């Protein structure tokens, strides 16, 4: 694993790096493609709403010796939907199935009676309303809207408006993809799914903010130097936090993957599937979008800023006239580090600066990140 440590070190020094910003069009394209697929899936297949949202039918049997798990099987065979089966205190069973009308429920009642080996008359069928009523949904939307406004304001203050916009775009991207894939897979939407989506919402922003925090730090004294453009620094900041992003994603995804593939796959736990699928897709999308979508988007927006444009001009001009200095640029493309108080006054050091190594050490190393050819 010391290779990994080395990888971290080399990323840290900028010896190796991936040009995220340079290839941004590719990633935007991929995202747009996935998003379109998701939207199409949503439009064509729609979401399969569970009983909590759309109501359904409830069947109450007489006192019976049929077990809950048997009844689940019967109900699923009869209706093709997942059924919620509960045993009541008096030994009767309550079987709830989503999305039924009277005609269907009568049909299923007869099927159930055959399975239970009883007379259909002993089973009562009634329609039930949603327990997740419109009010809960409306309040949830309201809460989300308020939260979005607040978070944009907060990010605009803590960082800047461009980052706020980029974070919001990444967030919408994550949610759309998750919902779309959910529609494509065709799982029933339960309250658990919604909770999963909300968790993603928090996580997606959280992850983006961690990446932005490092970006903000690296670009603090940007205009006081003329060695790198904003995009190049942004790119290096992504590479600098790459190890952290990978580790965090692995740590967050492993348990959820466990729930989804082991819990859902082998043990056949139904509800776990709903929740863990939305979590799995959402967490993956959240980690991906902070790196491939949000940060390049900030760079895109930034590069339109006159100050940053001017900087880019200066940087390119300097590079054109002094190939000798380019060597320096190469060696010092690492360690984008703000130094402590002892050298805060040194504006250049805040952004770059070769670290205790003669320039010669850097010769023959790979190109610096974001280097334009």
């Amino acid at each position: 694993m010391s290779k990994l440590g080395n990888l971290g070190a080399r990323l840290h020094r900028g010896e190796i790096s991936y040009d995220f910003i340079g290839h941004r069009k590719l990633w935007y394209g991929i995202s747009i493609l996935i998003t379109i697929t998701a939207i199409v899936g949503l439009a064509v297949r729609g979401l399969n709403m569970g009983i909590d949202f759309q109501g359904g039918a409830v069947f109450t049997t007489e006192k019976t010796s049929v077990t809950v798990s048997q009844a689940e099987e019967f109900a699923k065979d009869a209706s093709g939907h997942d059924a919620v089966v509960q045993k009541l205190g008096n030994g009767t069973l309550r079987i709830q199935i989503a999305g039924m009308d009277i005609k269907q429920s009568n049909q299923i009642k007869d099927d159930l009676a055959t399975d239970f080996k009883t007379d259909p008359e002993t089973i009562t069928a009634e329609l039930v309303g949603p327990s997740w009523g419109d009010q809960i949904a409306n309040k949830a939307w309201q809460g989300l809207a308020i939260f979005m406004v607040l978070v944009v304001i907060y990010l605009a203050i803590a960082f800047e408006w461009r980052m706020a916009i980029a974070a919001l775009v990444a967030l919408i991207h994550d949610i759309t993809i998750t919902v779309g894939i959910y529609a494509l897979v065709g799982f029933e939407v339960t309250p658990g799914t919604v909770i999963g989506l909300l968790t993603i919402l928090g996580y997606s922003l959280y992850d983006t903010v961690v990446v932005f925090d490092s970006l903000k730090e690296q670009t603090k004294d940007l205009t006081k130097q003329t060695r790198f453009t904003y995009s190049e620094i942004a790119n290096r900041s992504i590479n600098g936090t790459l190890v952290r992003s990978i580790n965090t994603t692995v740590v967050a995804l492993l348990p959820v993957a466990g729930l989804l593939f082991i819990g859902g796959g082998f043990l056949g736990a139904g509800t776990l599937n709903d929740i863990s699928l939305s979590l799995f897709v959402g967490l993956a999308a959240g980690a991906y979008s902070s790196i491939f979508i949000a940060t390049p988007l900030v760079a895109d927006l930034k590069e339109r800023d006159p100050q940053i444009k001017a900087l880019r001009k200066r940087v390119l001009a300097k590079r054109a006239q002094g190939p000798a200095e380019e060597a320096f640029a190469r060696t010092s493309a690492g360690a984008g580090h703000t130094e402590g108080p002892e050298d805060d006054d040194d504006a250049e050091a805040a952004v770059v600066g070769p670290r205790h190594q003669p320039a010669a050490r850097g010769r023959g190393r790979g190109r610096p990140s974001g280097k334009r050819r």
Partner: protein
Amino acid sequence: MAAPKKGRSASAQSKPGRSLALILIAIVGLTAGMFASGHTTPRLGIDLAGGTSITLKAKSDQGSAINKANMNTAVDIMNRRVNGLGVSEAEVQTQGNDNIIVNIPKGTNSEKARQQVGTTAKLYFRPVLAQEATGSAVTASPSASASGSSSASPSPSASASGTGEKATSSSSPSASATSQGRAVTDALKADSTPSASASTKAGSSASPSASASGGAAVSEGDAALQAKYAALDCSKESVRNTAGDGVKPGDATVACGEIDKVWYKYLLGPAAVDGTEVDKAQAVFDTQGAAGWQVTMTFTKQGGKKFADITGKLAQNQQPQNEFGIVLDGNVVSSPYVSSSITGGQAQISGSFTQTEAQGLANMLSYGALPLSFEEQSVTTVTAALGGDQLHAGLLAGAIGLALVVIYLVAYYRGLALIALASLLVSAALTYVLMALLGPAIGFALNLPAVCGAIVAIGITADSFIVYFERVRDEIREGRTLRPAVERAWPRARRTILVSDFVSFLAAAVLFVVTVGKVQGFAFTLGLTTVLDVVVVFFFTKPLMTLIARRKFFANGHKWSGLDPKSLGAQPPLRRTRRPGGPAAGPVETKEA
């Protein structure tokens, strides 16, 4: 648990032992509290543990039609009543055309819940025209009645303060007054302090005379009502429960109420103010006087105006016609009298409420009255909606996932993984204990989605120290020795952690305040885990890092410590001798022209 002040605490830097001790004491204390309270497992929601199912049937004997809109409104209101804090995971849904099913998780006070959902909570303020003691002492407490009048035995002593202040401004009924079963507050002028005059007034109000002199106040043509009033026997429970049935707010009516364990019958005028004009209600404890638990109401603008009007009119009347009856579901909860107009849009109901009763009543008044009245059809236990196998499968899968996390962390961070795992353990322990304690405290119940959310929260907790570890390693790559690296890395890692956790907490706070039901329960869990994340990183992970930085194994960068400068690919420092614990070799800036 009083979270110590966060921020730049010097002690955390210099005395790592102290904050470690602090958090360990907190864990031990909380765990001890958990065992002492006897609630050693978090309460589980219906999906995992089952609970009680109540079926309510709408009564069709009233003017209002049983239609879809009314049923849905009733569902919403009941939902808010049983889910007061939004974390109890109760479910409310319609069934058929006129039934509502309420599912309450195990371990909830189902008796209380039954009262809360079944009570219509129609509240009216009606002027008292006449009142008369029925005479026989009360034996059964009325709370046993199906109407579920949440006021078990309020000795009507409502006080209304006109200052817009809370209970503090209402003068306290003196002992003599309460023994009379009747305390009165002057409408307070904004500039005068509560005086003892109230009690002298109360003294003058002799216990309600049995001679009803109110007959005259009822307009002629209400002979039928007079007859009904004369015939009313409030000592019979069946009579009490039906006395106010089918009455329109605009009509005069009769009702029963209890003062000091004696039932009185009332002849009441048309409703002057309506419960819908109560903006919000709160249960408060009267710290000033002896009134105990009270319910303070704030009226809407219009309601406040009406209230001022009616009290102004009543104040000019003689006893008992200077009283107004606060009528809840056909029963007089209390009947205070007024001596001058009460402006300011506030009123209190006080009686011999217990805390639970006061909160229940406040809760009902806040969420409004049900558009229909319901009667209980059946109460039965239900088993878990998800089989127990689901939870087991989930826990097993989660455990496997966590084992993989452990393997990954050890492979990547080696020695540091010890700190990571210890932090995760502390975080998990705190989460578990708090959830177990919150069950009895605020009715918190854990459902399957929340379990999954907690598992994701572990990832977010882990992220905090991954951010920190990576910072430390970056510092080591700069050629610093471990101790300065640990201290220098902290402020920046701390900022990242706080900024990103703030976003999560913002989400939790907004959703908790705005939403209802399950979403609110989720927001609570998210907020809790976010706060715990910060607490654990600040008071456990960081101090532990400071401590281990002093150990040779780590400070010398042992191959397995996860902090080996060589394997991290550190730049060789300019000074070739490494002095453990010595001052860091300051980086030399090579300046460019």
